[in-house]
């Protein structure tokens, strides 16, 4: 039996009886005449009372079962076969860039018959969708995962870091990782620790508008990411996304200092309290910050992550039981997102004390996002310091969580883990913040 995805109930029975499948051309008899069209899939939460046809004009219409007296298949659908339009072979001598896909499509085609959107998987497909890539680098795409970014776990980070380390060994000039934007910042931070000292640029890139749209930000973000990964004279882990709402410049953010600060805008990603690492324009890199590490550094990565850390946001009336719950779930390090300079209520403080006494590491960041923690200004803060809570300065809460999972991945616990959390390892904290 053919594919009838999404159909259920009476509609499914009717279509099954007619021997119809998605993609077939049907003729449906209604009181007001015959309607001909291609059967398209029904969406997950659609009811069982309608049949959806794509008319010759391209429109989808939902026909109510009540209006349908007969369904017949007038032509079986043929699966469209893909033939990529010719794209130029990249010239010799271009840098080699590995493009790792993790899900969240950055380049895709549309099946106009059914509305399905399919990602590009081969370098030929990628080149034909974004022909400009051929001018910039020899691109080798590789799909590692196909998951929504909210389902990324420390286990994925371990695999990703391992693949990048291998690419360094294989002689890649740069690596680009395409990633859903929701947790892109967490992954960028995680890889910054696991790949500290990486000798090539590792650029994470996403899109705020899906690539099936003509207005997608994906192609330009990808072109910039591949261009920077292949040709920049600096190394390290960065995020490449739109700098503003225009399709002209792409910002490169340091992996440990970047945060998604808007739900939907193209320029949702921002560098927090540090200048941009670089700005890319259509002509290439327009601006590069001073002091970025050069290519070709020594590289001894520690690639493993251990997810037994927790990030808790303090709020007025937060029950201490939530801290206990984190502890019971196995957390060895708890990152608190405190108020203001880094404060929590007495009740929560009491639970943190007992967590520390039992060997856990408790760290403090601020939910203000901008600025640094300071536990010496108020008594509440001094109490926290006294009980052993570690203030993390201007480290972003999400970065602190990724760092904690990496620290645990190294096998460090207790005092050793606390020491690693306090030490600056991948630009995650800076001693000085400037006005402006």
């Amino acid at each position: 039996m053919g594919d009838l995805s999404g159909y259920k109930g009476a509609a499914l029975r009717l279509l099954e009886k007619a021997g119809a499948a998605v993609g077939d051309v049907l003729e449906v008899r209604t009181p007001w005449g015959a309607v001909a069209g291609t059967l398209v899939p029904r969406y997950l939460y659609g009811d069982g009372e309608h049949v959806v046809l794509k008319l010759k004009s391209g429109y989808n219409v939902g026909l109510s079962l009540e209006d349908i007296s007969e369904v017949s298949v007038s032509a079986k659908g043929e699966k469209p076969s893909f033939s990529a339009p010719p794209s130029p072979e990249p010239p010799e001598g271009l840098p080699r860039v590995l493009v790792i896909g993790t899900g969240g499509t950055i380049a895709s085609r549309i099946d106009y018959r059914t509305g399905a959107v399919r990602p590009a998987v081969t370098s030929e497909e990628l080149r034909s969708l974004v022909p400009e890539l051929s001018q910039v680098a020899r691109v080798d795409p590789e799909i590692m995962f196909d998951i929504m970014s909210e389902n990324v776990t420390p286990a994925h980070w371990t695999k990703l870091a391992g693949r990048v380390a291998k690419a360094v060994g294989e002689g890649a000039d740069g690596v680009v990782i395409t990633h859903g934007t929701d947790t892109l910042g967490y992954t960028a931070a995680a890889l910054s620790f696991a790949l500290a000292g990486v000798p090539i640029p590792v650029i994470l890139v996403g899109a705020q508008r899906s690539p099936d749209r003509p207005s997608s930000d994906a192609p330009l973000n990808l072109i910039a990411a591949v261009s920077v990964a292949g040709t920049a004279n600096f190394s390290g882990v960065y995020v490449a996304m739109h700098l503003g709402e225009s399709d002209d410049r792409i910002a490169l953010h340091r992996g440990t200092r970047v945060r998604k600060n808007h739900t939907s805008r193209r320029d949702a990603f921002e560098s927090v309290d540090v200048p941009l690492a670089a700005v890319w324009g259509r002509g290439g890199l327009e601006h590069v910050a001073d002091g970025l590490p050069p290519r070709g550094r020594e590289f001894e990565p520690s690639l493993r992550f251990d997810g037994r850390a927790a990030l808790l946001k303090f709020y007025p009336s937060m029950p201490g039981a939530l801290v206990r719950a984190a502890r019971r779930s196995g957390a060895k390090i708890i990152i608190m997102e405190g108020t203001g300079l880094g404060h929590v209520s007495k009740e929560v403080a009491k639970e943190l004390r007992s967590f520390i006494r039992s060997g856990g590491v408790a760290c403090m960041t601020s939910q203000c996002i901008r600025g640094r923690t300071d536990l010496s200004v108020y008594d509440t803060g001094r109490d926290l310091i006294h009980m052993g809570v570690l203030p993390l300065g201007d480290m972003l809460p999400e970065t602190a969580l990724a760092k904690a999972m990496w620290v645990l991945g190294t096998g460090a616990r207790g005092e050793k883990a606390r020491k690693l959390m306090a030490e600056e390892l991948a630009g995650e904290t800076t001693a000085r913040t400037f006005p402006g």
Partner: protein
Amino acid sequence: MERLLVGLEIHQQLASSTKLFCACPTVKTEEFPGKFERRLRPAQSETGHVDPAAVFEFAKGRSNLYFWSPESSCLVEADEEPPHPLSREALRDSLLIAATLGSRLMGEVHVMRKIVIDGSNTTGFQRTAVVGLGGSFDVDGVRVGVQTVTLEEDAARILGEDDASRHWGLDRLGVPLVEIALEPVDGEPDLVGRVALHLGRALRSTGKAARGLGTIRQDMNVSLGGGNVVEVKGVQKLNLLPKVVEYERRRQSMLRRVAEELRGKGVRKVACTHADVTGVLRGSASPVVSRLLSGGAKAVCIAATGLGGLLGWEPEPRVRLGKELAEVARANGVGGVIHSDEFEKQGIQRVEEASLRGALGCGREDALVIVAGRADAVDRVVLLLVARLAACVDGVPAETRAPTDGGETRYMRPRAGSQRMYPETDIPDITVTEAEEAEILRETPEDWRSRVARLERERSLSGDLALKLYDTDEIERFEELAGRLKIEPSFIASVLVDLPARLSREGVAESGYAPTALARALEAVASGAVAKEAVPDVLKAAWEKGMTVEQAAGALGLERVDEARLAVILDGLVSRRAALIREKGDAAFSPLMGDAMKELRGKVDGALVARLLREKIASFLRAPD
């Protein structure tokens, strides 16, 4: 004669309070404080196919500058935020329109994305949904079928363009629009105009159509003798429709005749060769060529087999194949196209032509086309023209064309293919419940023709006046005034529909003939304070001097003369002209009426003067000396 078919597509903005996919109001913005720049890129289909119209726009390499203002757009129009749920108000309004046209309402509405990458939509697609299928109406005995009624978002408004970018205003983007696609009718130019007029009136009968300039646009699909369909986009003025239809008939007929000529000559395929002729033409005696080649421009000459003499051929007035080529070039940024049938006219010497033919190795039976301009643009245009020339054997190419102000059409881009629509996954399918459908069917308005006929009958109006009331949306105000004022309804109607235009011509601002001002003037007529004849002058004076209608009448000396006072005035006149009346009898009426009106114009109804004067003359003649 071959059959000409015309399918109309009417786009009507709805008078909804918000845009279709966000809470922005539907207002026009004059000043835009913000702007941003975008580039759109064609999306590839599953088969690797890319829409020809999309490729055409992308190949031009131009970016789009979007101008926005918080008064009329938000992040949704900027394509920086997903669309909000579809406006229920607009959906209901569009369903009412569909029901009015006899269309079957869709039980479930699916919003689609229709790829449009000329920049007029920031997303690169237009959101559109079928709300009604089928239906028909009758225009002067001709049945016109409705294919679909769709609810869609209007495009951004073009503000201007230069070589690098197009400029768009985001105020219009997202305004709810209903598109009605009609089945093709016989392309009798007059019928097409009447169909459009009827549909416009039918839309207005729902009360849901927006009014004003640019709120209704017509597209036309025109095909001759079963040939390819040519789409003419954006005819704003109704009176242009018949002209455009007629022009397309001539143009398509010319293209078919060119194809026939080629077949007659045994040319099955127009083969083209081309060569860079910048060197050959440098120093040309032709002023046109030397102008085109100034400043480092490039010239390429195309030779096309068998087309000699056919580029300048004009089998019907004002249509030539050569013009078509120039239009394609111009749409791609190249203004310099000269073909061999016009070489002499453009001052290209025989020897120059001979060396061009030599360079391309072709004879006189072949046509030459010189393309001159900026090097990159010329190369692109040459490829397009080679393809266009090769298509000559097939007659009419499927194109999208734009109307000119004179009712002709010019080339815009290749016609969009069918592979350009896919579901808008950001908007869940919308169910229209049976209760909603029943309510909409109950609200379906009276047919506009029966409404106008009823008005004629009930208020004793002429057909013309009743229709004018309908067309100017004044019926409601008219009924209200006619119901409460004791004045002839036809007078009320003419004040409402004719007077504003007259006063506007005389320089009176809109406030001077606002509905309230007109109503006050009519009330003054009803109360006897102002004579009917004086209404225009009184309104004008009231506006000029900032007075009430009554004050203006006083200031002009136009207070109404009542019947008793009129009788006294006429008695005086009759006794002054007694000699004349005795001499001429009833025939004295005309000169006396002239005298009377000199004094009474604007103060009393002329008909009343005439009646009383006749009575006075008759009683004078009856009276004993």
